[in-house]
């Protein structure tokens, strides 16, 4: 991509014989905030460490502003990383930590102090510069780590699950703070996380990784509403899966689950990967409407089932509903009883449809 701040070109990496990254390609625009999202072992941290130079690249190139940096050691890459453990130096003060990168760049004491002061003020750490980092709270340490990375004004900011050690409540605030700061400074940022919501809230673009490959790249809205594969659909929360039969009907398809549901007509192109006679539908528990089992609503697929489990996580009820031999988790505001017959109403726009047996595979790379 022309004008990319960071370009990853068919990068492969391995730990011994195990290939962790398989020809990953990605371009990041200047000032963009990209989240690498995936479950444990998908290669997201390895990709970040390959970018920072801590994991050698087996093949492929990493370019910053068009310059190949794949062979450079980590200390020559002009990037700054915020580590999961913060990696603050316990024998230094907060100001010492923040100013260390400037010392390495040969800044004099007065200039360093001024810059450190700016960082402390920006990160709401005024008055804490003289404290040893071991005397700071988790949130404060996290900000010192961020300050240390931002103080050197790096070309690219790398964030390795920086929020995972924070309390849930503080984490919500810090997400927005980091995003706001990144917007304000216009810095290019790559953020590794396994937290879907965190990626959605913070990133301009989300890269979903699966087993060392990019499964999909897109805006939060795209990957949420238009998952490119069954993996992405499941990962983005559409974890209920139902297998449907498909029958051609003119330019559309008629979908149904036999005795367990009614039939609905959908446009043929709504099935990713082309429709065969079997279709896999993913849907989110919160996108359904529970109603009577025989409430045949046009344009809505109704699965006939029975409430097997009920819990109240807050705001709505969560039900485990059994349909035939399958089990679905769905939400509804109304109180229902275990054993009650219900219909799970699935509006067409709540269904993510894929050709059965043929996962549409990695999405086209952006």
């Amino acid at each position: 991509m022309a004008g990319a701040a960071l370009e990853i070109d068919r990068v492969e990496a391995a730990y011994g014989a195990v290939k962790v990254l398989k020809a990953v390609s990605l371009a990041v625009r200047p000032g963009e905030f990209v989240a690498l999202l995936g479950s444990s072992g998908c290669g997201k941290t390895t990709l970040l460490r390959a970018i920072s130079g801590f994991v050698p690249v087996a093949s492929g190139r990493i370019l910053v502003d068009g310059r190949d940096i794949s062979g450079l050691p980590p200390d020559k890459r002009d990037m700054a990383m915020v580590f999961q453990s913060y990696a603050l130096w316990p024998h230094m003060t907060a100001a010492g930590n923040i100013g260390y990168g400037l010392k390495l760049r040969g800044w004099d004491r007065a200039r360093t102090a001024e810059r450190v002061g700016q960082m402390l003020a920006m990160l709401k750490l005024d008055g804490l510069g003289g404290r040893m980092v071991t005397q700071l709270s988790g949130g404060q340490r996290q900000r010192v780590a961020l300050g240390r990375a931002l103080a050197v004004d790096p070309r690219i900011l790398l964030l390795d699950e920086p929020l995972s050690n924070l309390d849930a409540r503080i984490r919500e605030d810090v997400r927005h703070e980091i995003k706001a700061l990144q917007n304000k400074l216009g810095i290019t940022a790559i953020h590794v996380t396994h937290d879907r919501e965190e990626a959605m809230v913070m990133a301009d673009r989300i890269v979903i990784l699966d087993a060392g490959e990019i499964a999909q790249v897109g805006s939060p809205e795209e990957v949420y509403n238009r998952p490119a594969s069954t993996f992405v659909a499941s990962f983005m929360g559409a974890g209920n899966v139902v297998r449907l039969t498909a029958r051609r009907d003119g330019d559309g398809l008629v979908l149904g689950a036999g005795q367990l549901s009614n039939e609905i007509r959908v446009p043929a192109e709504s099935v990713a990967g082309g429709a065969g006679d079997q279709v896999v539908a993913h849907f989110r528990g919160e996108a359904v409407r529970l109603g009577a089992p025989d409430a045949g609503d046009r344009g809505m697929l109704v699965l006939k089932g029975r409430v097997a489990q009920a819990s109240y996580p807050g705001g709505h009820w969560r039900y485990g509903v059994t349909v035939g031999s399958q089990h679905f988790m769905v939400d509804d505001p109304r109180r229902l009883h275990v054993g009650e017959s219900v219909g799970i109403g699935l509006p067409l726009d709540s269904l993510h449809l894929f050709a059965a047996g043929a996962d549409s595979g990695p999405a086209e790379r952006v």
Partner: protein
Amino acid sequence: MRNPRFVGLLLVAPALLAVGALFVYPLLFSVASAFTSKEGQATLANFARAYELYSVDIAFTLVIVVTSTLLCGLLAIAIGGYLTLGENARAVAILKWLYRWPLFIPFVVAAQCMRTFVAKNGLMNNSLVSLGILEPIQTTSFLDWRGIVITFVWKQTPFVALLVAGAMASLDRSTIEAARNLGAGRLRILVEIVVPQVSSTLVVALILSFVTMMSVLSVPIMISGESPTMMTVDMAFRINAYGDYGTANALGVLSYLMTGAVAWIYLRRGIREGGRP
């Protein structure tokens, strides 16, 4: 068996007795006898004699042990640093395998080896001559204070390195990567990031080495038994030649004071760091 305190005491009693009989009693006895004349009266005469006869050796001992301790520290940092930050996996593996060897060699054997190594026609000089670094005429014997220092450093560095390298290996690796990421070279990371974080372990290892070296008799006797020499040699001489336990014990008390001073520096440092030893 109803009183748990009694059971506890019973359990530690053998250890307590052993420490009391084999360490505390002889220690107190030797300290007391340092302040006692042959006639059994309290006196400082033993210290006066020790100072009069051996003041040079006392200073000599201190210089040798302090120098050796510092050199051990520097080499251990270099070894630990390479083991932690080295990027050549094969070199790291070889060093890891090699550096511990002297740990398993007793001081007396080390001293014997060093006699042949650092002598005028020893292996060290012969190697330097054959490498063309020295002319045969320039070779001198190192069987003096330098030989003692070389032996101590050779023998004690692995011990310090073992502890220091262990502490370095247990550091949060990302603190090293964070410095690397910001642009620090490896030497700088060693000095500014790694060593400060393992300083407590380093100091403990150096104090233990200091105490060990203060008490070694075989090395100074075998490498350089002539004056000036170390206090341990003088103590052995007072006892073997004159049966003069008083002066020997006075010298012993002085070595306790030296090691005690070092331990005090360490403890004070621990308190300043917030009670963390």
